[in-house]
């Protein structure tokens, strides 16, 4: 029994020994494949091995907030501010942005195409009682969607046309496609799924309300002494390096004809103040 524990201990320490950096991020970031594209360069340079844990925004911040990750990359400015306020994270940096879109069936029963703005689009959906799928999982996308309903002065909860999937963006898009419903999605996931779903981008504009900003924070070593603070800082520096920022902007541009992510070069479009 003791030998078993010893073996487990040994294997456990192997996992954390020398040069591992744990990054908690969201499924939409992870599923875009961006990290697989830009992390290898960082790993080669530093010799660090980056372990990426992709979960919902809420869970990513929870994991980081328990010191189970060394750094966190999410897209929920309000939650990021709270994370900083509670002293769980330090050195917030805005890495990139893209946008949210409203996608839906070609028939567009609510007339979203002709909406004057994001809030008007939501009001049209509400008025029409058109099927709408929500992430329902406290993710960045979900929080954005809830904020839009609230800003429009509407409460969709409990309505028969308001469906909550509780799943990731890809599964939500699939569901919306199957049901001929509208949904709010991030650009990246939609571009990947475009060929697989019967949905069109009905509201795809440079609207400040639809801004999706990605922030990077290092987990506070003062709170969690065991975190790899040096590695987290190095990754943050790396992500904000001009060459890497350009790489981020170019990612999949050739394939989709547009940028998946627009680099911010450290200048936040949405301020994040603790």
């Amino acid at each position: 029994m003791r030998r078993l524990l010893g073996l487990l201990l040994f294997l456990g320490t192997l996992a954390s020994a020398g040069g591992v950096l744990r990054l908690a991020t969201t499924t939409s970031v992870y599923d875009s494949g961006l990290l697989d594209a830009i992390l290898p360069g960082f790993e080669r340079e530093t010799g660090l091995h980056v372990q990426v844990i992709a979960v919902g925004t809420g869970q990513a911040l929870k994991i980081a907030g328990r010191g189970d990750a060394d750094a966190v990359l999410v897209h929920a400015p309000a939650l990021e501010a709270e994370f900083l306020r509670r002293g769980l994270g330090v050195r917030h940096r805005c890495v990139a942005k893209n946008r949210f879109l409203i996608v839906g069936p070609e028939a567009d029963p609510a007339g979203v195409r002709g909406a004057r703005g994001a809030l008007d689009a939501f009001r049209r959906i509400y008025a029409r009682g058109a099927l709408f799928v929500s992430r329902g999982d406290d993710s960045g996308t979900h929080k954005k969607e809830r904020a839009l309903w609230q800003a429009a002065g509407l409460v969709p909860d409990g309505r028969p046309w308001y469906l909550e999937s509780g799943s990731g963006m890809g599964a939500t898009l699939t569901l919306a496609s199957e049901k001929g419903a509208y949904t709010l999605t991030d650009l990246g996931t939609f571009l990947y799924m475009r060929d697989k779903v019967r949905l069109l981008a009905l509201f795809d504009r440079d609207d400040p309300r639809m801004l999706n900003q990605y922030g990077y924070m290092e987990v506070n070593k003062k709170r969690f002494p065991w975190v790899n603070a040096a590695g987290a800082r190095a990754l943050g520096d790396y992500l904000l390096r001009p060459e890497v920022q350009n790489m981020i902007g170019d990612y999949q541009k050739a394939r989709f004809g547009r940028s998946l992510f627009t680099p911010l070069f450290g200048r936040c479009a949405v301020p994040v103040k603790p």
Partner: protein
Amino acid sequence: MSEVIEITLRSLLVSGLATLLAALFAVPLGLYLGLKGSGRAGRAAIYAGMALPPVVAGLFFYFLFSRSGPLGALGLLYTLPAMVLAEALLAFPLIAGFTLAGAAERAPRVRTLVRALGGTERQVLPTLLVESRRVVVAALAAGFGAAISEVGAATIVGGDIRHATRVLTTAVVLETRRGNLEAAAALGAVLLGVALLVNAFLVMLEARR
């Protein structure tokens, strides 16, 4: 493709170790309770254990191994050993329950036989173990099946980290989430194939003896 092989081998490793680890404790326990006859408390506990929802086990280990948790210093969260432990916990009641049922069925007659030929009470257990070997193999198959198809606890405790803790089940969920349903189905087929192969092997083993 090679990543599929990597994931498959990892699944086999984690679930295989989990089954063996669970069996190490569950088989003797099942035999012992079967031998004792009315181990009502033990039996009730095992049956309750079978009803343990896997995600609950996953959460338990998450909080246990989290860096902020009691065993955080071990650094086991998001590692393979943690997954092995979680899956072992889930396989344990299955293996113990199967073994117990088989042993209890045979124990009285085995005991009578051993005593009838002048043997001692202490010789009953080893004889019972050999007599119950087919049942134990079935128990291992059941335990392994539970372990390898486990996804909830495996995700919570392992984190589905690429090249580190991703296994077949978590990979299926990942691909589904991304909308790559064909890839998910392919991985699912591999998972099914692996489970069937291992079970076929175990059945073969049981039949040959």
